[in-house]
Structures are given as C-alpha cells and as structure tokens.
C-alpha cells in the first residue's frame, strides 16, 4: 500500500496548476502540493533535498513543453540523481504525438503518460492504480 502525500507539479501553465490542485483536493489525493514552473526549478529543489532525504515527493507530475528545462531534459537529469525514495512519475502533457509517447517509454521509471485535459474522476482512477 503506497501512500501518496507529497505531490510535485512541474508545469508552466498556472491555470492547469490551479485546476489540477483542485481536482487532487476533490479526489482527496495528496496532502502537500509543490509547484515548479519548469524542469530547472524542480531539479534544483530535488538536488537541495539530497538523495537520502525522506522529504522526496511520492508523485511527480511533469509537463513536457516548458521553458528553461523542458520535461525531457528534466527526466534525463532526474534519471542521473541518486536517491533512495522512488516516487511515481507521470508525464502530464497535451501532446498526443506518437513520437512523444514512444520516447516516454524509454524512461523505465515513468509510470504514466496522461494526456490533458484530464477530469477529476479520470485522475482519481489513474492514481488509485498505484495505491
């Protein structure tokens, strides 16, 4: 039984971030939400925590199209990080390009590719799978 308390949302779209937080709250998923506007900020945050920290998130939701460090670059860098806690990683993007889908599969630690828009019910169903 996996507990999902701390959720990282890495997305540059404030409207989406606003919406997704509300959906997660409605679905009673997670207790703490951390928002990063791009991959760089998120990476810096994780590095600051250090690999042995128990403060690592339980779920990371990362968008693909972002400024500074995009989703792919973030995932590349993330795979290099040494850490004990292995969070769930969801790509949450509006891309429906099969090329992106294929590329996502190359990251074995990515659990889901979620296509936006996403509703509260759908979100709940997906997360429930990993509880």
């Amino acid at each position: 039984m996996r507990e999902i308390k701390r959720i990282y949302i890495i997305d540059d779209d404030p409207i989406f971030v606003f919406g997704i937080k509300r959906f997660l709250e409605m679905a009673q998923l997670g207790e703490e939400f951390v928002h990063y506007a791009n991959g760089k900020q998120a990476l810096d945050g994780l590095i600051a925590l250090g690999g042995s920290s128990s403060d690592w998130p339980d779920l990371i939701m990362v968008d693909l199209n972002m400024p500074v460090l995009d989703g792919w670059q973030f995932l590349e860098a993330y795979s290099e990080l040494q850490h004990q806690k292995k969070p769930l990683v969801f790509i949450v993007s509006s891309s429906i390009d099969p090329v992106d889908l294929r590329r996502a599969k190359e990251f074995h630690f990515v659990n889901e590719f979620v296509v936006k828009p996403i509703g509260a019910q759908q979100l709940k169903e997906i997360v429930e799978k990993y509880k």
Partner: protein
Amino acid sequence: MSYSPGLEGRIKRYEQILQGTHIGTWEWNVQTGETILNERWAEIIGFKLKDFGNTTINTWLNFVHPQDSAASDRALEAHFKGETEFYECEARMRHKNGHWVWVLDRGKVVSWTKDGKPEWMAGSHQDITERKNREEMLVRYSDLLDKSNEAAKIGTWELDLETLLVHWSRVSREIYEVEGEHDIPLKSNIDFFRQGGNRQAIIRLLNEAIEFGRPFDKELEIISQLGNKRWVRAIGIPEMSGAECKRVYGLFQDITEKNLMHQELVLQEQQFRNTFDNAPNGIALVGLDGRWLRVNKSLCDMLGYSPDELMALRFEDITFSEDIGPDWQLVHELLEGKRENYQIEKRYIHKNGYFVWALLAVSLIRSEKGEPLHFVSQINDISIQKNSQLEIQQLLDTTREQNARLLNFAHIVSHNLRSHVGNFSMLLELFSTEAPECTNNDFFPLLQHSADSLHETIGYLNDVVAVNEPSEEDMKEINLLDFVRKALLDLSTQISKDKAQVNVKIPENTMVLGIPAYVDSILLNFISNAIKYSSKDRKLKIDLHLDEPVGDYHVLRIRDNGLGIDLNAHGKKLFGMFKTFHGNSDAKGVGLFLSKSQIEAMGGKVDVESEVDKGTIFKIYLRNAGD
C-alpha cells in the same frame, strides 16, 4: 613410172630443194592407190617414213581428220573435172602425240590414162599449224572485243569523207535504235542529235576534226529512231594524210544510265543539303579535333554567330565550362568504339553571353574500313523546356517549404489549442462542481457544449495533421480480408441493428502494402458511412468486392444502396474538409477527407461513383504487396 632416165639428176636436185623448204611431198596413183611419200611428209606428223611400211592412199586416209577428208575429196573432184588448175585444201592430220596438225595440201594431176582418167598425181604438204592457230585466236579475240563493246554499250562508227556516208557497228545501230545494216548519210546521222546545242556541237566537232585534225570526246544527247532520249559519249578520231583528212572514225557509247545515276546523286546531294541547311534544329559536322566542319543556319541562329564566326571556334569555346568534361568523356567513348552515339543536355554560350540549354545528340561517322571520319551533331534548343522545368522545380521547392511550414503551423496550433481548450474544459468542470448554483441557467450548458465541440474539432485536426507521408519502413504487408473482417466485427452491433446485408468477395491472401492503423480507419470509415447514410426505404446492402487489379494496385470496391450523393452538386467538395451533405447531426465532414488523405499517404487513390437515392460506390486503390 614413166619418167625418162635423163631427168634423174634434175629430180635429185629438186628433192634437195624440197628438203630445204621443209615441204613434204607425195605422189599418188589415183587408179591403183600406190603412194610414194618423202621423209618430211612423215616427219610433219611425228613419224619416220619406215614406220608406215608400204605406203598407199590409206596412209593418208588414216591420219586425216574425217571432217577435212570430205573437203579434200570435193577439191579433188573439182580438180579432176578440170575446174581447178591445182588441187588445194587445208586439212588436219593426227600427230603421233595425239594432237592435230594443220597442213596445206596441194597437188596436180601429172599424167592421165589413155581413156582420160587421172593417173599420177604429185603434191606437197606444208605445216601451217602456227598460222591456223593464230587465225583462230584472232577470231576469238575479235569475238571478245565485240562482246565487250556490247557489254559496255560501245559502238563504232566511221565517216567516209568521199561518199559522206557513215558506217555504224551493230552496237551503234542499237544505240540509235535503227534497223538494217546500210550506211547512213552524214546529214541523217547529225539529225539524231538533239536540236539546238547538241546538234551544233557535233557539227562543230566534226568540222574541227576534218579541218584541223582535232580529235573529240564529248557527252551529247540524241533522240533515237524510236524517240528515246539518250546520253551518248561520242569520240572522234580524224585520220590525216598530210594536211588532208581521209576519214573520221570513233566510238559511240550509251551513257544514259550512268548520267541518270549521276543526276540522281546530284539530286540526293541537293536534297541532303536542303535538309541540312533548312532543318529547324541545329545540325553540324564536327571534326575529330572538335572543330566545326559544317554548320547549318538553325545552329548559327541558336548561338547568335554567323557561319564564318562559328566555324572559327571549337565546340569547347562555346560550351559552358562545367559541361565540357562530360561531353569530351562521351566523345572518347565514341572514338574508342564503346558506344555508337550519345545524347546529353548541355549549356552552350550564346554570342551575347547567356546560356542556351540544348539537347545534343552525336554520332560518329566511320569510313568503310571503320576509321573515324567525323561527328554528326544534332542540337536542339531546349531552353524553354529547361527553364520551365527549372521553374517547376522552384515552384515545387517553394511548395514543399510552404507545406512544411504549414504542417509545423498546424502542429503548433493544434497543440496550443489543445492546451487552452483543455484548461477551458477543466475550469468548466471545476466551476460546475464548486459552484453548481451558477450552472442552472441558459448559458452554462451552451458554454459546456461549445467547449466540447471545440475539443472535438481539435481532435479531428490532430488526426489530419498526423497523416504524413509515411516512410517505406512504416508500410506493412496487410491481409486485406483479415482487416475487412475485423472492421465488420467492430461494427457488428450497428450492422445487426440495421439488419444490413454485407457481402464480402475478397480472395484470401490479398496482400496490400499499407499502414495498419490507416487501413483500419479507412475501412471503418467507409463501412460506417454506408450504414450512416442508408435509405429508410430499403434494406441496406453493402458489397465489399475486390476488382481486377489495375497496374500495381488492388482495387477494393465498396458499394451500398443508400442515399447516394449528388456528385454534380458536391463532387468537388466530397472529400473536402468539414463538408457534410446529408444534414445528419453526427456528420462532421472529416471522415472522407481523412480517409482520402490516408489512402494517398499510402500511395493509393480513391474514386467515387454515386447516384442520388440509388447508392454509392467507392473504389479504393491500395498498393499490391505481392510479387
């Protein structure tokens, strides 16, 4: 014998003389047949006198040629009758070695019997073989000459200046086509020559021959007795005795055929020259060193040079530098016998400096011995085609670039739109959850509907954008029948609900080349369209048949008996995007557009036939994966 004894000495002397003259002698008693021969008589035919033993008239008869003994008998007869003073006859005798020897046999009766019959006859044999052979040879040679004259159509003629008659040989008469052998008055002969220049010429030539002893050799035209025009070569040789001409003789040759051939050659040469000079395309003879030997007007016009200017240049001088190398390469291959001709597109440089695109075709002309003589080059100005080809290429490049930009644009638009619409839907959902009291009005459901429609439209747009030119690796071999069955299974609920009758006639193992997802989508789309637009008046029938292949394509025919489409009104828009025709509420007008794009992306095409209220036939061409 009745010689008086006093004669013996004289006879002896005569015998010695006869021996010296190499003449054989004979004496013959006509009545008894007794014969006396001398040694020389026997020697002429290769014998010794003693070889004969007793000699009689039979000794002669044994050796004489049977044909000639008859002639000899006739001559004797005449002599005995006193018709000739001497008996004389040329006769052949068989030599000891088997060949024939000609002898001149002569003799005279020297004594008569009391009742007036010839008794003794004396005579001689002279060997005339050599003379006879010469005579025979002469006859043969003369015959040969006649025959050669005849073959060469050479006749002879001779003008007698005393009688002013002309004698013609047989061949001459044939040339004039005159019957009979009589000589012709000079005036008549001259009249055979064509009136005008020809006749005046022969008169002048004859006069000069007679007056100055000047021989002539001239080609003239005559009209024969039968009215045929003939070219003749008349040769005249005056025979002079001092300053006076005694006669003129000469040769007369029919050269009509030769002249005709010559004229034909002249005509051919002229025709060739006309063709060469007036040909609309450039033609040139080019030497092995690259120098022009002859150029025609079209070529000069094409390149802007006068013939003299052009002839002073080599082909490299007026060829764009990049094109010289490939041209020389091909020239070498011609010279080495690796090829017989070549064709290239190349750029010449006009006198005014601009390029002239030309299609150059070159062949090497060789002598009968196979040695290279010169090149024949045909040069066609293809600047217009070439320029329009370049224009088309540019247009194509521009279009490609624009298309790529458009695709990129479509990607961005659809992606960004998706994000925004996604947010929009999400916000509406949150709104309705968190402030349900605000949704209970006329506006909220409409807003919700608009958001859904927008989302759907963007979805279709994405499908369309996703149809790209697939690479050959994306193309898979697909069993058409399996895919049709799968599509029918997917649609089985609708098919059974409408009680539609589906008739599939596709052979097993019909393999097409395509992208599985596209083929799935295409089949689903066409079949569901048939169901969607069925007529309410009759039971739906759908045929899925494979037609005869066309080229490298399998042709799938999908036919329904539904509403049909008015092609006159909608034909052009049928496969257009967002076009609908039946007012069905769920028609979005994307299906056919998408299917067509997908079919074309796989290298195929689609045709449609339709009649309102009868039905529609779609013919889908898919690449054959077999063979």
